[in-house]
Structure formats: C-alpha cells, structure tokens
C-alpha cells in the first residue's frame, strides 16, 4: 500500500463500504425529491472519488491483500470484521463505485414515484455490493451477499414493469435457494477448520471428496448468480421488468459476484476439485455462449435481447476462468469489467429508448436512429463493443479468454467460435434495425435526441470503451499479480509459468 501519511491512517475500505449507508440515512430525512436526487448523486460521486486513493495507493506488484482491516466482531462465533482488497476485488470495487453515479443519473427522470425510497435502495445496494467485494471473513461475506437481495428485489418489485412482482420473487427465491447451499458450505468449512477467515481457508489441502462437495455447493450458488445455463432463467425476467438503474446494477455488478465467487472462493479453497471439474465447466460455458446467442437471436424485446447477451458474455468469463490458464483468467477478469461497462451502457441506452417510445419492441423502435443521431452514435459504439469489435474493450477480454481456451482444450475453443458469430448476428441485427430499419419504419417524428444529462451518463462509458480497448495495459497490471497468485494456488506453484515481461 503506497499512500502518504496521513491518508494511510484512514480505513478506506470501511469508508467505501459504509458511507453509502450513512448517505442513505441522511437521504431518509430529506424533504424534497429534488434534494434526494442531488444528494444521492453527490454521495455516489463522493464514494467514487473516495475509491480513487484506494486505486492509486494500491500496490499492483504483490498479490497480498491490501488496505486490510481486522477487528473482532462476533467473538463467540469466531467471526471477525475483516476487509481487504487485492487486484481482483479492487477493479470490481472501482466498477461498482463508478457505475452507481451513472445509475443515479439514468434514473433522474425515469423514476417518478417514491423517489426517496428508490435512492435509498440504490445506496443500500452500494454498501452491500462493495462489502461483498471487500469482505475477507465468510460470515461478513455471506451477510453482504444476502443483504443485496432485498433492496434488489424491492427495486424490481416496486418500480419495475408489468410483471415486476413475478420477476422480483423469482429473482429472490432463485438466488436465495443458491445461497442456502453457500451457507451449508460455509458452515461445513467452519466445522472442519474452526475459522471463517478466507485467507486461512485457502490452500488447506482438504480431502478430495470434501472439496468436491464444497465446490458443488459453491457452484450452485455462484452458477445461479453468474448466471450459467441452465440456472439462468431468472435473468431475463429480472432484467426486463427492472427499471433502468436496476438493470444496470444487475448486469454490471450483481452478475460479477458470481464469477467473483468462483475466483475468490472456489479456485483457491477447493483447487483439486476445480481442476477435476474444470473441463466439464468449460463445456458448460461454451453451451452458455452458444445458447445465449441463439436465444438472443430469437428475441424481439430489446431488453430481453441484451439480457440474453449477458448470458453469452458471462459464458466467456466463466470459460476464461475454467480454462485455468493465465490468458483465460486475465481475459475473464477483463471480460467482467468490460461487460459491466458495455452492458450497463446498453441497458442505459435501451432505457433511454423506452423513455421516448414507451415500448421495448424492436419492431416499434425500427429506424429511430435517423431522428436521434447522437444516441445512435453512442448505441452503435456500445453494440460494437458488446460484439467484441477490435479497438473496443471487450475484444481484449474475449480474445484472451479464447486464447486461454485454445491453450487448455482446442475443441472447446473451436466450439466457442460460433458463439462469437452469433453475438455479431443478433447485435448487428439489433443495431441495423434501430439505426436504419427498413423502408417501412414507424413514424418517429417527435422523438428527441439525447439531453446533456443523458449524454453525460453515457460519455464516461464511451471513454472507457475506447481507453480499455486501445490501452488495456494499466488496467491489466492492477490485477495481473493477483491472477498469477490465484493460478499458483489452483494449479500448484510448479505448474505455473512465470509472468512475461510488462
């Protein structure tokens, strides 16, 4: 950790985790809707600003956890309040704190009823999400993991679309069912080792049978979260019915918790089981890739299309993870970040379109691009990025993931290629329809182009698309050491070739 004194004295992670909660407490007593909106925007921006010193002070050369805080919490359980970040968690924390202000901006005019409660929900969610990424104690981890379910379900269930209650319940029950298995695994590990500390649980060399059961328990929970086929059906419902900000948070952050769980928990704690089952999971990921692509191709609802594209993209991420190669893992982490940026942006775009057209049907949106050229420009870039067009951010991630897959098993890589083609197919079809349509487009006479606020919401994401696409090195450097260490933990130190030069 390289921060100058007195900055080094501050418990940055606790600040990051709990300041949204404090801001929520303040927002609860604010009177006017306008004040609530501005206060939430200011608070999320302040948290984003607070994550900058953490990023700057982070030492990328070591995989050890940094900014560690360790305090007693529940002595009779043995649970401690332990927070810490390594490269992997850091980039996800940055993603979370960065995307929340944009969610607030995207909800500015979208949410018209119960604005204060909505912003409260966003802030509480931010606490929970950052907490998940920073927690190094299993009880704390599980607490934050569960804590994000309720606000999310409320976000969907109160401010969502026509079938919001169905979607919210489905999301809640699905995820909770998975979390039950996670809880069982946590308790089992505690009973075996007597500790809840994640760092102590890693690399213990449990017997293989135990590892397999624990891995499977983790797997159910995380696979539902990612989501991996066939545990994915909550995603389309939740995404379609959620409000824009809810979809963005869901896509950008919540889905990453599943893959984060794999990386933080499954790989280091149950390495032998991971190595044993990884080949099957790569095939499952490829199935998700192709299946997500096929179903997306069949959709006519814009939001559902993007939701299924998420299934496909996260298939790339899990593919990268389970190849257990450096390229694959780096690609997976990059893919997580890039998917957060790109799909978040796509959901914002679809939300903007919905605000204007009051429909999400692709046919109804045909040819609107001519009336909203600025929007079409942004949309086009994000679609290209989603398709992993070279020069945009997703290209690097998918390329590395495929390279890892190629290294691990050539048939898997070859089977993944149709998924890439499918992605191009449904995304370009969507872009073509929205931007140009056909000679018989519906009448879009009154549709207005992006306002300044909406442009400001999308502009940082656009910048990130190109910055990461053309110059990914600084970002990759942040988590490269952690990935290397993770590989060593999973494969054993001798099996991992040393890192190439910068």
């Amino acid at each position: 950790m390289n921060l100058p004194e007195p900055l080094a004295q501050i418990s940055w992670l606790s600040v990051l985790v709990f300041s949204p909660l404090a801001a929520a407490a303040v927002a609860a007593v604010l009177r006017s809707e306008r004040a609530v909106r501005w206060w939430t925007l200011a608070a999320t921006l302040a948290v984003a600003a607070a994550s900058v010193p953490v990023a700057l002070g982070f030492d990328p050369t070591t995989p050890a956890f940094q900014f560690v805080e360790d305090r007693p919490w529940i002595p009779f359980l043995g649970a401690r309040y332990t927070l810490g970040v390594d490269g992997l968690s850091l980039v996800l924390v940055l993603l979370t704190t960065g995307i929340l202000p944009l969610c607030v901006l995207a909800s500015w005019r979208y949410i018209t009823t119960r604005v204060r409660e909505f912003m409260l929900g966003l802030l509480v969610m931010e606490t929970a999400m950052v907490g998940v990424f920073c927690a190094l104690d299993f009880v704390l981890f599980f607490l934050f993991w569960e804590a994000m379910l309720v606000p999310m379900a409320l976000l969907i269930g109160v401010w969502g679309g026509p079938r919001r209650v169905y979607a919210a319940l489905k999301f809640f029950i699905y995820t909770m069912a998975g979390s039950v298995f996670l809880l069982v695994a946590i308790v089992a590990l505690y009973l075996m080792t007597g500790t809840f500390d994640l760092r102590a649980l890693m690399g213990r060399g449990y017997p293989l049978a135990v590892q397999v059961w624990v891995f499977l328990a983790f797997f159910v929970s995380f696979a539902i979260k990612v989501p991996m086929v066939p545990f994915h059906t909550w995603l389309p419902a939740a995404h379609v019915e959620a409000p824009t900000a809810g979809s963005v948070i869901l896509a950008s952050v919540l889905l990453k918790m599943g893959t984060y769980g794999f990386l933080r928990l499954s790989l280091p704690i149950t390495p032998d089981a991971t190595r044993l089952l990884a080949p099957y999971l790569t095939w499952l990921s490829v199935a998700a890739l192709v299946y997500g692509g096929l179903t997306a191709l069949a959709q006519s609802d814009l939001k559902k299309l993007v939701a299924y594209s998420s299934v496909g993209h996260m298939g790339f991420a899990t593919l990268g993870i389970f190849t257990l190669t450096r390229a694959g893992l780096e690609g997976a982490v990059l893919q997580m970040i890039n998917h957060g940026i790109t799909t978040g942006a796509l959901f914002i775009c679809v939300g903007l379109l919905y605000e204007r057209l009051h429909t999400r049907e692709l046919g109804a949106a045909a040819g609107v691009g001519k009336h909203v050229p600025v929007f079409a420009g942004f949309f086009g870039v994000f679609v290209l990025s989603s398709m992993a067009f070279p020069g945009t951010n997703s290209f690097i991630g998918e390329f590395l993931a495929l390279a890892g897959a190629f290294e691990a098993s050539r048939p898997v890589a070859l089977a993944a290629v149709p998924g890439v083609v499918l992605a191009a197919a449904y995304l370009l079809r969507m872009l073509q329809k929205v931007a140009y349509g056909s000679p018989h487009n519906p009448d879009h006479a009154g549709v207005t182009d992006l306002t300044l606020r909406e442009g400001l919401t999308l502009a940082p994401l656009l910048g990130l698309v190109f910055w990461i696409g053309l110059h990914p090195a600084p970002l990759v450097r942040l988590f490269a050491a952690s990935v290397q260490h993770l590989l060593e933990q999973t494969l054993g130190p001798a099996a991992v070739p040393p890192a190439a030069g910068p």
Partner: protein
Amino acid sequence: MSSFWLHPALVMLAGAALLPLVPERARRGWLLLVPALAFARTLGLEPGTWGEVRFLDWTLVFGRVDRLSLVFGYILALMAVLATLYGLHVRRVGEHVAAWVYAGGSLGVIYAGDLVTLFVFWELMALASVFLIWYRGRPESLGAGYRYLLVHLAGGVALLAGIVLHYQATRSLAFEALAVDRPTLATYLVMTGFILNAAVPPLHAWLPDAYGEATFNGSVFLCAFTTKTAVYALARGLPGLDLLVPLGVIMAVYGVVYAVLENDSRRLLAYHIISQVGYMVAGVGLADLDTPVGQLALNGACAHAFAHILYKGLLFMGTGAVLHMTGESRFTRLGGLYPKMPWTFLFTLIGGLSISAFPLFSGFISKSMIVTASFEDHRLWAGFGLMLASAGTFLHTGLKVPYFIWFGENRCSRETWERAADPGWNMTLAMLLTAALCVFIGCYTPYLYGMLPFQPVTYQPYTSYHVAETLQVLLFTALGFFLFLKKLTPEPTISLDTDWFYRRGGRAFLRLAEGPVRALDAWWGELYRRAGLAGLVRAAREARWFDQSLIDGAVDGLAAAVRAGGERLRSLQRAHVQESLWVALAVTALGLVGLLLYRAW
C-alpha cells in the same frame, strides 16, 4: 529523439489544417503567408540530420538536409508560393487544403532520411493530389481522378514491396543509394515505384489523363511536384542505374511525339512533361557519382528539374489562364487571342522559349548539362536522341502552343471570344515573377549553379559553339514550323496511349465481375440463406421455446406446485389462533419425542 526541428512540410500541413478555420477576410493573407513561411524555413535549413523519431524498432529521419535535398526543397517551396499566388482567388477552401497537403507531402519526401518516412509522404502526395483533379467537377473528372489514384496506389504498392525486400536483405531502412551495379528485385521494385511517379513509359499514361483534367491552378501544382519529387527520389536512391538512360531517352522522344499529336493545350504540356523528365531520368542514369561526368550528369538533372519546375509551371499558368478566362483549352476552339490576352501570351512565350533551351533562358543552361554529359560519356545515341527531342520541344511548345492559341486562324466561339481577357492581378503577378525567374536564371548562371550538389560547377553553357549549335537547331525548327504550318494545324483527335490497356482491361474486368462472379455470389448467397440462416433462425426459436417453456416451465411449475400445496395445507387451518398454536405445539412435541427416542436407541 532529437529536440523539435521545424520541418517545412509541417508548416504547409499545419497551414492546410488551419485554413478552414481562418475567417474569410483573412484568408488571402493566410494563403500568402503559409507558403512564404515554408519557403523561408527551407532557406534557413542547416545541413545535417534532424528530426529523428524513434518508432518501434526503427529510427525515422524526417530531416535529412544536404545539398541535393536543399536544391529540390528550395525550388518546390518557391513553386508552392507562386502556385498559391496564382490560385489566390479560388474560393473553395478544399482546393487550397489539398494543394498544400500535396506540397507538404512532397517536401516530406525531399527531406526524408529513411524509407518509411518516404513511403508515408509518397502516399500522402497521391491521396491529396487526386482532389485537385476531382475538384474540376466535370463528368470526366471523376473517372480521371480514380484512374490517377489507382495507378498511383499500385505504384505505391510496388514501392512498398521493394522497401520490404530491401529491408529484409539489408536490415536497414536508410534512404541511401541502392546498389545499382548489382540490381536485385528490390532495386527494380523501388525503381518501378519511382518511375511510375516520374511518368516513365509505359507507366506514364496517367499523367496526360490527369493533368489535362485538373483544375486550372491544380495543374500548376501537379506539374511541379509529383514528377520532380520522383526525380529527386531517383537521384537519391538510384544514381547511375544504367537502365534509366535508355528509359530517359525513349521518354524524351515519346513525350515529344505524342505532344505533337495533341489537340488540347494542357494535355500537350502534360506529354511534354514526360519528355522533359526524360532528360532528368537520363541524367540520373548517367550519374555514376565517382566520375566527373557522372557528377555533371547529376548536376544537370538537378538543374533541369529546377528550371523545369519554373518554366513548366509558367506554361501551365499561361494555358491555365486561357482555360480559366475562356473555358477552353483545345487548339481547335482557340486562336487569334493576342489582341485580348497579350500579357498571357508574353509570359507563355517566355515559358516556351525557356523550355526549348533558347539562349538567355533557363532551359538553355540546364538541359545542355545533361546532353553534354551523355556525349562525354560516349553515349552518342543518348545525346542525339535528347537533341532530337529538343527540336520537337521547340516545335510544339515554343511555337505551336503560342501560335495556335494567340495567333493563327481564329476558331473561337462567340462566347470564348467574349470572355477572353488577361487574368486578374494575382495570376498575372505569379506569371510575371516566374517568367522573371526563368530569364534571370538563364542570364545569371551562378544563381542556379551555386545551388547544385556537386561543387564547383565548371560547366560553361555560354560557349560560342554551344550557342551556335543551339540556335541552329531552334531556328531551323522554326523554319520548318512555318513552312509546314498547314500540315501542323490542329485537328480534334484523341491519341491512344498505353492507358488503353488498363481502361479496356478495366472494362473487361467489370464485365467479369458483373457476369460470372455475381452469378456465383448470388448462388452462394441463396445457399447460405436457405441452409444457413434459416436453420439458424429455427435453432434460435427452438432455444427460446426450450428456455421459456421447458426450463421456466419447470421452475414456474415447481413454484406453482409449492403454492398449490400451500393452498391445500391452508385449508387445514381454520381461523382460530389457539387451534393453530395447539397444532404447532403438538407437532413440535411429537418431533422432540421422536428425536429423544431416536437418540436413546
């Protein structure tokens, strides 16, 4: 990386980039200022190697300044000033931008010290100059511009291939003289790229095609830059390559022959560029730099390039003025314009006399260096061939062009006659300055000779023998012209040149593409649509059905089943709270008893 060195090309390129932003009132000042600044910069350059930039594994050299590049840079920058002055009244900003980018690219080639920089600026020249053709806006201009661009890009590809092979062989990218005594494929490919830009037959047909079709001031730029930059490149990279001597001589005669046949005055001048560049190419071919003869030849090539830029520019300015004022450039539609455009006539005449190497004009002191060098090198056929071309030159450019435009039978239409007048102040001033320079260079030889690469220049053009010989050739040519005046009257003709091959070939290729290739593509597309796309869409629909009905059906079905079970169970409850409590307690008690019994077992 050395500290920042201001490249003259950078001045032109920056000026071009900023020109659209300059307000209309200040535009003329900007147009005069930027080339003047670039010219001043070339005057202030110190010999040496400047502007080195590290790029990947290589060191790019942007500023290789020595006597050879100084003389070319000087005249090209000066020409940029004069040509911009000539076109000062053109309103369309894009034309000026294109011309300046073109000139900047040319200066970039002149000072390039390595092959990568050379190539980049080479291509930049082609891409910028095509706009000078397209801006003419006639229906023919589009096709002419495309042919120009395609030919130049093909030449660029040949050049690039040569550079790559050269790099593979020598691992060096320095733009120095290639080994000409043992020419390799790389040498020939580089030569092909250079001679295409120099318009050496058979790769020359783009020149009359394009230069006759460009805008009236665009041609002034075009005639100066591309070919002379190619001559510089030949002089730098391939001095003494023997193949260039016959190529140059054939060029000189070829250009003259076709020029005689031409009806359009600017196409005639364009063919004549080929002829004059032939002198320079032959000079470069003779330039075996270790011998005094070779040095004389290279000096001659540089001097001729210098003089040629000026007088060719002047000629294009004159005929361009006629085109601009009357809208006509063909001899069959002009004639007898002297009363209306006397000054233009005077300047064009000076240009014509310069190009014919009349004593006291610039061509005299430069062309003769090359001819003398070829005789000194005992290549008699080369020397006589070049002298023959001289005669032809005077015939058409010195005599035919001025005579059939400004004198002779007046074949102007009414409209042409009405519009004819001497052009505006800027065009007249540009022509005046250029003409004055032509005369000055011809009369005061140390001015040009002092700039040549190989010093001291001992060659003396004004010997009584040489003056007498030249006057003999020229005056007998004039006699022949006036005797055969009737035969030389222009007729509306189109000369077939080597571009016939690629224009016809292009049409044949298009027929191939529209016929068999398109049919094949349509068949393949139909196959793809039937077998591929339809199958894909069907698979997509089935995946969606699987997702919604099967998986979701199972999940929703499970939830529905649970709820149905709950409904059933609820019917067991009745409203009484106490009853529910008793039931709950009873079940718990039973459970505990069962557990105790089990443990005790």
